């Protein structure tokens, strides 16, 4: 395989990893740090994408749409935190699963009701379109480079917030013992609403950014949800660094698996079965990766003791 292609695939893996991280960032905060299982994370991602598509179409201004995605998702997040999630902290994880499963239904069908069943149009503003030529002559879409940058910035920001600010410390303390942190004078409910809304805003931002090069449609959040969970769990719950590394690992594995497996298998079997079997294996690869990581390190790569 030509060097340039390998380089491009590696860059794609990195980029896909960053995209995964961006999609998982909100979940890292809510699931990883607050310990709340929010299956409706994908719905917030969808809310962001729809808000962006709608506003961008109405005003013709992508950036306004992006802002709208942040606001709409944060508002939706704060709303469900106050109306639903808040009542569930003291309950079993399982009630959270059921409630957020119900929220998926409400959000998906509600969105369809508002916007119809057909995918919406959302594409990049001219400033972000096109390809740039990298050193070595590699042509690479500008937008994908932007994703890498935004992902990296979000990672650093989150990491600083969680480990370095009092807000972050208090969130983690609240996750460890809600009653105790309240008894020390921290209004944990308000804190959780803020954090949840922040996580939702990140999900919305990811939905808008990623939606503009994928498709904006009802149900777009579901595959993301699973991938985001995989990412967070591989990295270790509660660790931002873990989520980032997990995302890159998943991105690399998936991209390189897809690119290389059929070729490798073709040495052992005929081309067409190598193509299909290679593709099936590639689609199982990240789950295999996750299972292997967890069997070797039950608490994920960077997680504290399980």
């Amino acid at each position, binding site marked *: 395989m030509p060097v340039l*292609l390998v380089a491009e695939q590696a860059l794609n893996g990195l980029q896909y990893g960053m995209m995964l991280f961006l999609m998982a960032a909100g979940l890292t905060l809510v699931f990883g740090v607050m310990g709340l299982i929010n299956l409706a994370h994908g719905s917030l991602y969808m809310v962001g994408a729809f808000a962006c598509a709608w506003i961008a179409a109405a005003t013709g201004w992508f950036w306004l749409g992006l802002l709208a995605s942040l606001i709409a998702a944060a508002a939706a997040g704060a709303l469900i935190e106050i109306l639903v999630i808040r009542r569930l902290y003291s309950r079993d994880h399982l009630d959270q699963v059921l409630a957020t499963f119900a929220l998926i239904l409400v959000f998906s069908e509600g969105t369809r009701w508002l916007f119809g069943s057909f995918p919406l149009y959302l594409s990049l503003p001219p400033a972000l379109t096109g390809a740039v030529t990298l050193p070595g002559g590699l042509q690479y879409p500008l937008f994908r480079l932007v994703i890498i940058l935004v992902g990296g910035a979000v990672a650093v920001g989150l990491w600083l917030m969680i480990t370095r600010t009092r807000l972050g410390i208090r969130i983690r303390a609240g996750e460890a013992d809600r009653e105790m942190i309240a008894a020390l004078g921290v209004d944990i409910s308000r804190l959780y609403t803020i954090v949840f809304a922040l996580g939702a805003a990140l999900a919305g931002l990811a939905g808008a950014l990623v939606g503009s090069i*994928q*498709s904006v449609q009802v149900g777009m959040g579901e595959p993301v949800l699973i991938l985001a969970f995989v990412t967070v769990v591989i990295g270790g719950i509660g660790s931002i660094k873990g989520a980032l590394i997990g995302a890159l690992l998943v991105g690399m594995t998936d991209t390189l698996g*897809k690119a290389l497996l059929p070729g490798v298998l073709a040495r052992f079997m005929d081309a067409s079965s190598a193509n299909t079997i290679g593709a099936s294996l590639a689609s199982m690869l990240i789950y295999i990766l996750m299972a292997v990581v967890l069997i070797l390190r039950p608490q994920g790569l960077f997680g504290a003791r399980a």
Partner: protein
Amino acid sequence: APVKVGMITTLSGGGAGLGIDTRDGFMLALKQAGDAASEVELLVEDDQQKPDIAVQIADKMIQSDQVDLLTGIVWSNLAMAVVPAATAQGKFYLSTNAAPSALAGAGCDPKYFAVSYQNDNMHEAAGAYAKKAGIGKVFIMAPNYPAGQDSLTGFKRFYDGEITNEVYTQVGQTDYAAEIAQIRNSGADAVFFFLPGGMGIAFMKQYAESGVDIPLIGPAFSFSQDILPAAGDAALGVMNGANWSKDLDNPANATFVEGFETEYGRLPSLYAAQGYDTANLLLSAMSKADITDADAFRAALAEADFDSVRGKFSFGPNQHPIQDFYIREVVKEGDVLTNKIVEPVLTDHADAYAADCKM
């Protein structure tokens, strides 16, 4: 005698747009038929795009509602779950869309009619176009599931140039950077891809961003009217094989397209057209025979004596259509993206499985 029709189609979930168009096309035909359709009693149920739900609805329609005829399923996997059992219980099935090869060859059935096409046809049309246009090398790509495998087989059946790569993607995949990198390095003259629904939208948008400018070819599914607005300019210029287009020049089609736009305020899609044809086929058979006389009714259906929006239309021996296929190009009419017929590529085309059908 009245005919009770059970329509099982997808009205909720990610694929709802297709089912809604199917239903709306079907109902438009009934409406336009006026009194002639008064004998038709239509039940519509949502299969949620889940095969088990589809089976249960079919059971219900057959056991409780005692329908005479079923129709409406969009997806092949749902059709495979429902159709054989329905025909085994003596019900007619008219397919508005899905027509898997298993039901066209050895598994054909006297009570099963595909009014749409056979699944491979659209891909065959694309292959025929690639050959006709003299494209030397093609990169081909589809999701890794039976319909995807059939699609590449269909393409290759009519294309005889060099295949540079044959790539299977993940079902539901949303990021295509890795595939685009392979395309960039393939040296192909064209790319044939079959990526239904959101997958296609994502691919086209990313492809447009990538700086790669190898022309794209596909089957009609990825460029039907429900998809195009979302794909946007990224779809412009793509060639796609189809059995219908809204600019097909025949009176039935003109009535249909105009009626659909007035009734529903949007452009009709392929699924709507096929739903419309199916209803008209049914009405034509009802005017000739009574459904209680199954043999006569079947004969009446097989005559296909109705004005198809596709112009020429007849059934082959396996009760799948013999029809013309075209290559369409995605164009912009004013602000609206739509398809325009470029040229016919296959005329009076049947399918590859008819010979296996012993009926």
